[in-house]
């Protein structure tokens, strides 16, 4: 077999040579034979004639020789390709429409598939990534779904869970790098020693961290990413042992990671040891995850997720036996969940992505139906030719393969254009913010995608060929077809109802797509209309991380805040300025427990987590919070570390529905402590949206003086009469004047933050909008094509009827009523489909019912108007047809 392919390949490579050689060889044979005959006494002319007769038909011998070399299928294919190309060239308008349809539909699918593939399908870039899992604590009854894991969890589980081959902890953060005056804030990650070995990818130069480097005194070491090493160390091969200034202290480089190393969506450019103090590791800190520290683990070969889960559950049960907090945690529904790392990381965008793919696929179906209809129309106009060819002996296989070659040629060409469209689409997606999705920076347009494009084009070509081939084969009943399609004046029933069925399907699909888009758009609009609970206009926000090593105690940190806020208030255009440890809608709002003095939990009432903030300066005024009762916190409260706090109305309503919250006392944490540590409620503010605009639960929030809950990261919030962004430079300058080593990052107006927080709603809605627009265009083209063909087909009938006295309105009405019937059928199916789709995508919708009457009506209306206008043109043409002209070519 292999041999034959080799021989075939050789011949194909030099096809011309093969033909020349064959001709020469056969000619030589004839010449030799003629000579022999002449030598035996025959006259030369007679000899040549004899030789040719005895040899047989030269071209049939040549054909047999080609067949002997296995060339026939190739010749046939080339002939059919030429035939197809000739046919396609003859109809440039059809071509352009068909190519554009395929290109747009495949392009849209490729674009979305690129995202789905790189985010959902491709395994994480680590060996045997399927065995990587994450473990997180959840307290569902307290309203805390994910709380990460605590340092105590890590040390208690390390080496104790038999199903794990490795367990590691990590957290993200930022660090200020470089010397005074030229500092930069970099994204970093802190990781435990076995982090890299758990992932199965680690430093290519130097080493990983050791256990000795996990205490706060010995953690002055760093591992660089390849990019940082190249950029800041000029790819120095002797970088190990060199020093680097981190947050003002000198750290030693101990390793360099391989190029392209990336953990999930992390932007970290440097890795530091996860260091902790002994007291952080104790059992008292077991539930202090705070969603900032996370565990990953690698399952042992053969171990299952379920085994790991049950081992974790068993260990938790054992540990809880002597845990004073166990009862409360059990009431909060505490559990540690083991989940596959990849699936867990992309869980939030998975439904949206799959729906986008479904939308793109619906578009592809509409496009394919359109093309089928156009091809069917063309096949109808060639029905005589096909019938004649079949009568002359073209085999069924031949008829089928010809169609397949033609449709595949078309879709392949369209597919190549679609690749270009897809490449453009991916660029569009990144403008829409796709690279901010989890794993979004992995989105790639590569050979794998090109293969998918070609494969998709071929499959589409084959699928398109099926109805056309079926139609052509039916044409075998040659006489009947010729009669019905040309002389009788009305088209064949089968072909007609097939085309009409396709129109109905197309209208139904487009209705579903459009109303789905409408639902997404409406959800987005309703989400945007939600008041965040404060006045987001004219606010500039920025982040500063104040390192603990240079601002080691609260007085130092508060002095920094005070100086900054004072300088800011002197700035022209600033009306209020404040500091907070985390702004709402930042995407990482943590919740923590609080206990109200005197409140006894009822049976079945679980402890709750509250959004907790530390504020300084005029934070509430700067944000535009509304005051319901009492007063705001002031800079004074922070300076004096007063034991006071402000709660929001959700919190107040929960605990004191019938009384004033003012003067009440509460404790930070899950248990009441001494009175001296209690906080007095001095004010109640309006509730604000904390995690996202589409938040539905009234979780409650507590605002403490900054000194009591702050961390190394702070947000500055400035209200101004000017355009917020215009204040950015001034703010950076002010901070540098106070401390030249502190850069300000993440400068964004609050309006921008709110808009950015909706990216997961906006991008799908926008994409669906684009798909719908294309679908409407396709509907217009499809309906117009089929209807105007119907008019052409029936011109004789129309001519006869008009000659017999039919009025133009009657002719027009005939076609319009056909269009209306198709539209009605499509709409009914479409509405059913829209309802089912709406139900299925409920998770994506915000305050919108699955079947929103106005949206569906709008979708039906748009499609109705477009398809009716597309019908009007041909119907109008039919009505204005001159009977003489119509009957002329009878």
């Amino acid at each position: 077999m292999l041999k034959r392919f080799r021989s075939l390949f050789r011949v194909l490579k030099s096809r011309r040579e093969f033909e020349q050689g064959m001709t020469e060889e056969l000619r030589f044979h004839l010449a030799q034979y003629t000579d022999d005959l002449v030598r035996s006494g025959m006259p030369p002319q007679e000899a040549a004639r004899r030789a040719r007769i005895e040899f047989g038909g030269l071209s049939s011998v040549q054909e047999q020789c080609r067949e002997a070399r296995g060339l026939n299928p190739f010749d046939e294919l080339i002939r059919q390709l030429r035939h197809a190309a000739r046919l396609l060239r003859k109809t440039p308008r059809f071509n352009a429409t068909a190519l554009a349809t395929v290109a747009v539909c495949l392009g849209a699918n490729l674009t979305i598939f690129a995202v789905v593939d790189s985010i959902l399908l491709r395994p994480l870039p680590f060996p045997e990534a399927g065995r990587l899992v994450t473990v997180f604590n959840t307290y569902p009854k307290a309203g805390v779904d994910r709380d990460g894991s605590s340092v105590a969890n890590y040390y208690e589980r390390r080496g104790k869970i038999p199903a794990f081959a490795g367990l590691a902890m990590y957290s993200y953060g930022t660090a200020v790098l470089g010397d005074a005056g030229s500092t930069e804030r970099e994204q970093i990650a802190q990781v435990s020693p076995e982090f890299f070995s758990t992932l199965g990818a680690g430093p290519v130069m130097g080493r990983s961290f050791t256990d000795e480097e996990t205490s706060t005194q010995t953690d002055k070491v760093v591992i660089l990413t390849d990019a940082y090493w190249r950029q800041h160390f000029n790819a120095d091969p002797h970088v190990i042992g060199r020093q680097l200034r981190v947050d003002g202290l000198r750290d030693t480089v101990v390793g360099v990671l391989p190029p392209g190393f990336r953990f999930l969506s992390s932007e970290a450019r440097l890795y530091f040891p996860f260091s902790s103090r002994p007291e952080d590791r104790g059992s008292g800190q077991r539930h202090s995850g705070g969603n900032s520290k996370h565990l990953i683990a690698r399952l042992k070969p053969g171990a299952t997720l379920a085994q790991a889960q049950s081992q974790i559950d068993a260990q938790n049960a054992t540990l809880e036996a002597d845990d004073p907090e166990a009862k409360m945690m059990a009431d909060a529904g505490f559990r540690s969940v083991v989940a596959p790392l990849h699936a867990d990381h992309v869980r939030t965008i998975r439904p949206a992505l799959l729906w986008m793919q479904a939308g793109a696929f619906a578009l592809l179906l509409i496009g394919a139906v359109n093309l089928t209809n156009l091809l069917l129309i063309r096949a109808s106009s060639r029905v005589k030719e096909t019938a004649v060819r079949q009568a002359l002996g073209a085999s069924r296989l031949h008829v089928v393969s010809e169609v397949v070659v033609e449709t595949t040629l078309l879709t392949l060409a369209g597919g190549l254009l679609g690749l270009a469209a897809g490449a453009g689409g991916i660029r569009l997606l990144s403008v829409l913010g796709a690279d901010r999705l989890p794993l979004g920076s992995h989105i790639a347009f590569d050979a794998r995608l090109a293969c998918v494009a070609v494969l998709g084009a071929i499959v589409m070509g084959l699928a398109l060929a099926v109805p056309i081939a079926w139609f052509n084969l039916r044409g075998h009943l040659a006489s009947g077809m010729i009669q019905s399609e040309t002389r009788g004046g009305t088209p064949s029933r089968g072909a007609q109802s097939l085309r009409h069925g396709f129109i109905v399907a197309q209208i139904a699909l487009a209705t579903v797509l459009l109303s789905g888009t409408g639902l997404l758009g409406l959800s987005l609009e309703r989400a945007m209309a939600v008041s965040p609970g404060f006045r987001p206009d004219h606010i500039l926000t920025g982040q500063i991380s104040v390192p603990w090593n240079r601002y080691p105690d609260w007085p130092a940190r508060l002095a920094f805040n005070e100086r900054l806020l004072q300088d800011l208030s002197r700035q022209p255009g600033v009306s209020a300025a404040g500091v907070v440890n985390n702004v709402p809608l930042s995407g990482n709002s943590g919740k923590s427990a609080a206990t109200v003095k005197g409140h006894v939990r009822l049976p079945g009432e679980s402890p709750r987590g509250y959004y907790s903030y530390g504020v300084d300066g005029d934070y509430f005024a700067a944000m535009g919070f509304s005051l319901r009762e009492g007063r705001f916190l002031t800079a004074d409260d922070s300076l004096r570390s007063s034991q006071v706090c402000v709660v929001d109305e959700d919190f107040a309503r929960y605990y004191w529905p019938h009384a004033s919250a003012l003067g009440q006392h509460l404790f930070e944490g899950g248990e009441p402590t001494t009175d001296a540590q209690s906080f007095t409620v001095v004010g109640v503010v309006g509730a604000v949206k904390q995690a996202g605009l589409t938040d539905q639960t009234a979780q409650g929030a507590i605002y403490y003086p900054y000194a009591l809950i702050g961390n190394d990261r702070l947000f500055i919030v400035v209200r101004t009469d000017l355009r917020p962004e215009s204040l950015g430079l001034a703010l950076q300058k002010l901070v540098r004047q106070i401390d030249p080593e502190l850069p300000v990052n993440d400068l964004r107006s609050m309006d921008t933050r709110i808009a950015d927080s909706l990216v997961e709603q906006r991008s799908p809605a926008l994409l669906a909008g684009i798909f719908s627009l294309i679908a409407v265009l396709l509907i217009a083209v499809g309906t117009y094509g089929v209807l105007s063909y119907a008019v052409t087909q029936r011109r004789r009938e129309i001519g006869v009827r008009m000659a017999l006295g039919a009025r133009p309105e009657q002719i027009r009405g005939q076609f319009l009523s056909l269009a209306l019937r198709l539209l009605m059928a499509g709409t009914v199916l479409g509405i059913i489909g829209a309802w089912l789709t709406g139900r299925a995508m409920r998770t994506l919708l915000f305050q919108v019912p699955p079947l929103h009457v106005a949206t569906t009506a709008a979708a039906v209306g748009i499609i109705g108007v477009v398809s009716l206008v597309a019908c009007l043109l041909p119907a109008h043409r039919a009505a204005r047809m001159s009977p003489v002209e119509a009957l002329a070519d009878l």
Partner: protein
Amino acid sequence: MGKTAELLPGTLEMLILKAVSLKPLHGYGVLQRIQQISGDALEIPQGSLYPALYRLEHQELIVAEWGVSANNRRAKYYKLTVAGRRRLREETAGWNRLAAAMATALNTAPEEV
């Protein structure tokens, strides 16, 4: 010319292999050689010779090479490959077995049954 026999299907290839196994030959030469070695008993239809040659070449049982004929014209010469030689041997053995069996069968007299 004596009496000629019809070729059985498949035997042409065998004859071609045999002919070129003796000495490299061009197509016309193969024809003449077969007639010669069969004592002019076999008539080869000229048109079917070349497809058979091409088929054998496709199966890599023979290879072709351009050369110069006795009367100084460019001609394509065929010769046996190793695989071709092995095939010829097998086919010859198979043929002989068949021929012997056929002869025995056809020569059976009534009293031998």
